[in-house]
């Protein structure tokens, strides 16, 4: 191990100490909530850089963060093109269709306990079909372009959202249901005024899980056939060209997009379910 590796490890220990103090002293402050995870992330990068350089790992195996950053910087247009193909068209399209269909299905089966009891176990079974097996089939059915990626995403997000939404629609407490009964409320009234609002925290739970699934689904589907752009295409072909810095740049884009997407849903959740104890803070 050379000096870079030791320096990185020293940095790690120091950062850990700093984070410990900051978290304990100013843990409730807004800046600390950003500073601590940020420093942790920087530490991971420093450690990575130090170990790659220090242990002389070939860059075709694992490039250093600096190399990735450089590659990222000079392939922004390429990355953007891949991003819009995979995320904006495939993932987002599939996400909207899949989540929408799941919500509607949940509402449809909500009236029939019989259907629910039958659909959910079967649904869980189909949700367990591994995506890597389903993706080639959907590519065969829906063609090479983003439509097949969206289809994979639909399949992936449908059941988690459905299960959460069904649970959410059942999540009203007996008192609330009795209350609606004392008003002799119609099905529509109790759906619109009680069950839908009460289901929102559950729905968002599902929607948040679905964000990362959508991303992964769209990227993975591209491994099984794609036009010559897209993040999954780039990752699988760049490996063949030993351009690992580009592969990691795409992974960075995926992680950023995923975290951003997740964060966005969390934000919407905050405004929609402002009333829920977990959001009142």
């Amino acid at each position: 191990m050379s000096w870079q590796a030791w320096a990185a490890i020293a940095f790690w220990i120091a950062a850990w100490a700093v984070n410990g103090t900051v978290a304990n002293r100013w843990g409730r402050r807004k800046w600390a909530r950003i500073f601590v995870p940020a420093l942790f992330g920087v530490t991971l990068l420093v450690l990575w850089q130090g170990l790659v350089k220090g242990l002389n790992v070939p860059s075709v195996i694992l490039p250093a963060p600096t190399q990735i950053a450089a590659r990222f910087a000079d392939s922004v247009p390429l990355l953007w093109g891949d991003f819009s193909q995979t995320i904006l068209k495939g993932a987002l399209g599939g996400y909207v269709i899949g989540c929408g269909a799941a919500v509607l299905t949940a509402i449809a089966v909500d009236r029939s306990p019989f259907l629910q009891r039958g659909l959910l176990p079967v649904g869980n079974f189909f949700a367990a079909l591994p995506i890597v097996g389903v993706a080639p089939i959907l590519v065969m059915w829906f063609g090479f372009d983003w439509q097949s990626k969206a289809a994979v995403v639909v399949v992936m997000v449908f059941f988690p959202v459905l299960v959460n939404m069904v649970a959410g629609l059942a999540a009203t407490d007996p008192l609330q249901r009795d209350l609606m009964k004392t008003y002799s409320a119609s099905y529509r009234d109790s759906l619109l005024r009680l069950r839908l609002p009460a289901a929102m925290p559950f729905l968002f739970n599902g929607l948040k899980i679905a964000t990362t699934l959508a991303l992964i689904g769209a990227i993975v589907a591209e491994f099984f056939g794609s036009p010559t752009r897209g993040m999954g295409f780039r990752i699988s072909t760049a490996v063949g060209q030993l351009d690992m810095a580009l592969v990691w740049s795409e992974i960075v884009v995926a992680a950023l997009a995923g975290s951003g997407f997740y964060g966005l849903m969390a934000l919407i959740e905050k405004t929609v379910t402002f009333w829920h104890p977990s959001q009142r803070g």
Partner: protein
Amino acid sequence: MRNILPVLVVCLVIVVLWYGAALWLNAAWVYDQAARAGTQVGFGQLVHDTMTLPRPKLPAPHQVLGGLWDGIFGQSVTSKKSLVYHGWMTLEVTMLGFAVGTLAGLILAIGIVHSRAMDMSVMPWAIASQTIPVLAIAPMVIVVLASVGLKGVIPKALIAAYLSFFPVLVGMVKGLRAPDGLQLDLMRTYNASRTQTLTMLRLPSSLPYLFASLKVGVAAALVGTIVAELPAGASVGLGARLLSGSYYGQTIQIWAALFMAAILAALLVAAIGIAEKVVLKRMGMAR
């Protein structure tokens, strides 16, 4: 038990829809073939042909069942064509990866619950880690580990663990924080140490959460294993089976392997469900 009838009804509906879809999706090929041969197909012929294609676009349910049956019962279990053999290979890796992932998730969760610094730093990155497509990093992990001499089961198990630690982590952070203020205050009035609070309060009250996340985790581990089996020198396991089926256009083989995987997942989840019942019952938590 009372779910059986509804499940059967739903399955029946799916099978009917499935046959319809098979007819519809496979018809194009049958017509194409007829056109190339210069013949006409009547409806009866069409139905017969679409249900019996050797490489259908969508195999009919009975074809998949046939593939499953042949894979499970039609071969000796040591045969490389046996789904039991490949399922077992996948199961082994899944269990190992699941164990490692669960342990990692548990340890991280305990750390997060006890250290503010860990809580604040690890969680956002754990979420970010799950946005990385596994299929993209799996080959790299396999290559990197192979270069340090790790081959076979361990790299695959690590990828399985990577997928399964997350649900366990999230569930256990919730679970270990499940004790309410009253219960924690009670422990404080006894001046209980952190370890005592962990073992006597936090861990027992997290059990329902643990089992819920184990169910998600074991399914995730299975997916991880299958993903890892694709690039790992496509040798054994359901993943390899999926891949080779795909490579040779053997749609029926793909579907059979797919269903085998889903059945395996269902069995694993059911096994955890049983463990849950037993444990919670022994702890007096199941009513």
